[in-house]
């Protein structure tokens, strides 16, 4: 079936080339049938790439090791669940995922505008097919997912154990959906600039896709953070890793765009700024993919070889140069139609929010690319770590959270000081109450965390005030009971109140980040069975060792040959809090040189953490068992000498029993972090608010407004 995959890629490239030609020819000559044919080329591309993706997915599920990518990233011992996800764990498979998702989202976008903006859509079609052609070319010429080896190896290397985690099924597709969705506003921006139609219509057409990109990227980032916290064995959820940063940057510029587009919709202002943000977001999404795919920067996410670096640099260069050219050459049609009425207005607040978001993006961009810049200028690689990022991002995040509380209580166009004073009273009291409670509780030693909690208090009070006043206003108009009035208020103003919910979610998330990073207790200690240690106000005792030897019985279901761990008793004072069972999985390396027994546990050892998570704190534990003791090593050595491959598991059983009988002291990592759970809850609130804002108005609420006969009525009831 690899031949079918290869045929699909070649056919896809031909379709892309034809579609680009037909789109440009159609729009240049006014031959609409060509523009429509180009749009349909995108649908055809989706069909072809769906077939290609299915071919690869089937190869993974059937353990078809004739496919090099299957042999390199899967194995018979890899559980089926993870085999299905292994498609995007490889360089080649993830390129196919990118192109496939791009074709699906592009088809949807072009289908929705099939009867509108024909010229803009034709250019957008050409751009989207250009992106697709780029990724398909990479798969044909540099990293093909359908390369085969004959004869096929009997067994594959297996999926990287670090990726054997449930959210890895969904994290990359979400992130890639975000990245590919970012290219849709970019494509339409290019179309709008090319046709000089940078009016409200194209903004309206891309708004939902920009929102969807933002939402998918956000969920992808959060799932990545969750993976880092629960799987990587270091206990953190954000390490300012290059690839983490690469996904955060387009999310930040996308957030800025979602705010500033409202100013263009309402006032016809910020056109240059908005197209620049859209172009920057799309370019940053491609740069994010570049960072993962090129292997140019060290990252736990980097997928190896640097073979794709040059094509990506060329693409990014074209994107940047093309964006600058289009914006500069269209500056006459990008002129603002109005000016700010007042500095005390929601527009001004949105501008300030945009400045902070872009500043955050710039800081992260500089910190991420600094190693490359430094190497290019001085010849020596230097890098910046979390303290450098924290120095700049923490104050900016504080301002951002504060602005998200101020925005909702300021009116559009102009607000008066008298009204502002009245509207700020409750939020300020909220912040003050938070401060008093925290100071009374003795939380004074971390000023930035304290400031973040106060800012969050400000946001909660501000948004609560908005909901209360809005519900009251709705009740005054419609006489509905409070719950119905609240529902009607949100339903009739989804973007506004969905946005407020997002603000609350962001504040909750930052409370979790500030608390967990400022008031964390961490201990790394070697402990023997029966020993204990104190972590914050908790006592953790090593009760007994554990050992699991059958991959299918491995508690984490990740397919490890051997998992060694511990049963830990967590108590606070005399109260039992939790029993935790961290372990470390040892995987088959697939290297016969390590011996018949040695290779079974010679692969990467991966920590399976265990934690007691709660609303107020998480107790997080990880173990690194010591299998280098002479007694355990002797079992491996003798097994290697005397046992065949079929008999080798016997030695693993003996090793496990020896470990249980004479457990050596193990290295433990304990962390007690307050309020981590609120990071995930905040993320869910952001997701919920995003869904409210993006959800189309229900048909019962939608009204059809006949243009001529009811235009005056429409204005009157607006």
């Amino acid at each position, binding site marked *: 079936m690899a031949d079918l995959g290869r045929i699909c890629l070649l056919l896809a490239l031909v379709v892309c080339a034809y579609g680009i030609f037909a789109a440009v020819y159609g729009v240049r000559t006014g031959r*609409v049938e060509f523009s429509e044919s180009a749009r349909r080329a995108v649908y055809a591309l989706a069909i072809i790439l769906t077939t290609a993706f299915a071919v690869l997915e089937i190869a993974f599920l059937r353990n078809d090791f004739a496919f090099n990518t299957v042999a390199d990233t899967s194995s018979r011992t890899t559980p089926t669940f993870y085999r299905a996800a292994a498609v995007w764990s490889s360089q080649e498979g993830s390129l196919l995922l990118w192109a496939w998702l791009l074709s699906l989202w592009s088809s949807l976008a072009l289908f929705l505008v099939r009867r509108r903006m024909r010229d803009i859509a034709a250019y957008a079609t050409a751009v989207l097919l250009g992106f697709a052609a780029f990724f398909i070319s990479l798969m044909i010429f540099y990293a093909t997912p359908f390369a085969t080896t004959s004869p096929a190896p009997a067994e594959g290397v297996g999926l990287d154990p670090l990726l054997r985690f449930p959210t890895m099924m969904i994290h990359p597709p979400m992130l890639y959906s975000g990245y590919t969705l970012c290219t849709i506003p970019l494509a339409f921006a290019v179309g709008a600039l090319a046709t000089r139609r940078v009016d409200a219509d194209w903004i309206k057409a891309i708004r939902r896709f920009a929102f969807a990109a933002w939402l998918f990227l956000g969920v992808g980032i959060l799932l990545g953070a969750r993976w880092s916290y629960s799987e990587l064995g270091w206990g953190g959820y954000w390490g300012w890793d290059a690839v983490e940063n690469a996904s955060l940057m387009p999310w930040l510029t996308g957030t800025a765009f979602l705010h500033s587009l409202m100013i263009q919709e309402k006032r016809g202002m910020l056109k240059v700024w908005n197209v620049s943000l859209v172009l920057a977001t799309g370019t940053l999404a491609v740069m994010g993919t570049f960072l993962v795919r090129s292997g140019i920067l060290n990252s736990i996410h980097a997928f190896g070889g640097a073979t794709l670096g040059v094509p990506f640099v060329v693409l990014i260069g074209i994107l940047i140069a093309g964006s600058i050219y289009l914006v500069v050459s269209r500056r006459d049609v990008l002129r603002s139609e109005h000016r700010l009425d007042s500095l005390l207005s929601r527009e001004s607040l949105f501008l300030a929010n945009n400045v902070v978001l872009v500043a955050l993006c710039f800081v992260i961009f500089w910190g991420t690319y600094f190693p490359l810049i430094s190497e290019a200028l001085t010849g020596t690689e230097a890098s910046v770590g979390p303290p450098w990022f924290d120095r700049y991002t923490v104050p900016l995040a504080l301002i951002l959270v504060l602005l998200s509380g101020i925005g909702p209580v300021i009116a559009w166009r102009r607000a008066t000081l008298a009204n502002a004073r*009245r509207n700020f009273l409750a939020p300020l009291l909220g912040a003050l109450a938070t401060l008093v409670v925290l100071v009374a509780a003795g939380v004074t030693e971390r000023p930035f965390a304290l400031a973040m909690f106060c800012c969050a208090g400000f946001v909660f009070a501000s948004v609560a005030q908005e909901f209360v006043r*809005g519900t009251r206003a709705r009740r005054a108009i419609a006489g509905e009971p409070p719950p119905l009035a609240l529902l009607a208020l949100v339903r009739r103003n989804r973007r506004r109140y969905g946005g407020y919910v997002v603000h609350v979610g962001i504040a909750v998330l930052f409370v979790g980040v500030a608390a967990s990073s400022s008031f964390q207790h961490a201990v790394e200690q070697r402990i023997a069975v029966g020993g204990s240690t104190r972590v914050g106000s908790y006592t953790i005792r090593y009760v007994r060792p554990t050992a699991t030897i059958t991959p299918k019985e491995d508690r984490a279901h990740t397919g490890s040959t051997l998992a060694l761990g511990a049963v830990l008793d967590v108590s606070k004072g005399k109260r039992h809090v939790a029993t935790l069972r961290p372990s470390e999985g040892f995987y088959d390396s697939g290297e016969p040189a390590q011996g018949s027994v040695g290779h079974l546990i010679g692969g990467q050892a991966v920590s399976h953490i265990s934690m007691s998570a709660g609303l107020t704190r998480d107790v997080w534990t990880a173990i690194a068992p010591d299998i280098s003791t002479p007694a355990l090593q002797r079992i491996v050595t003798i097994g290697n000498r005397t046992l065949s491959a079929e008999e080798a598991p016997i030695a693993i059983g003996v090793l496990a029993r020896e470990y249980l009988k004479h457990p050596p002291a193990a290295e433990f990592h304990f962390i007690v972090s307050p309020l981590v759970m609120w990071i995930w809850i905040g993320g869910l609130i952001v997701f919920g608010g995003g869904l409210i804002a993006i959800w189309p108005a229900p048909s019962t609420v939608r009204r059809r407004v006949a243009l001529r006969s009811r235009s005056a009525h429409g204005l009157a009831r607006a």
Partner: protein
Amino acid sequence: MEVLVALLAFALLAVVIAVIAAPLRASLARPPERKRERVSPERAELEAEREAKYREIRDAELDFRTGKLSREDYASLDAALRSEGLEILNRLEALDDRPKTDPEVED
């Protein structure tokens, strides 16, 4: 297996050609003419502006009802927004009688 792959490839090719060529075949079947968009660009732009203006009027009312605007500020702002809205409606009316859409407005 090779026969199956060939069959699948040909089927895929046929589907792709059918999908892509449909508009070209349709245009050959009838005299070529420049089809008009269901919504003209000018009308689409004005309709988008009108929707944005309606939303702005509703937002101003909500700002007033939630205490962010004084009665005087709201009265003058609302009058200004409605006059801008009327101007958009007049421009829409002034367009020739090309096919109109029935735009959906979020309530």
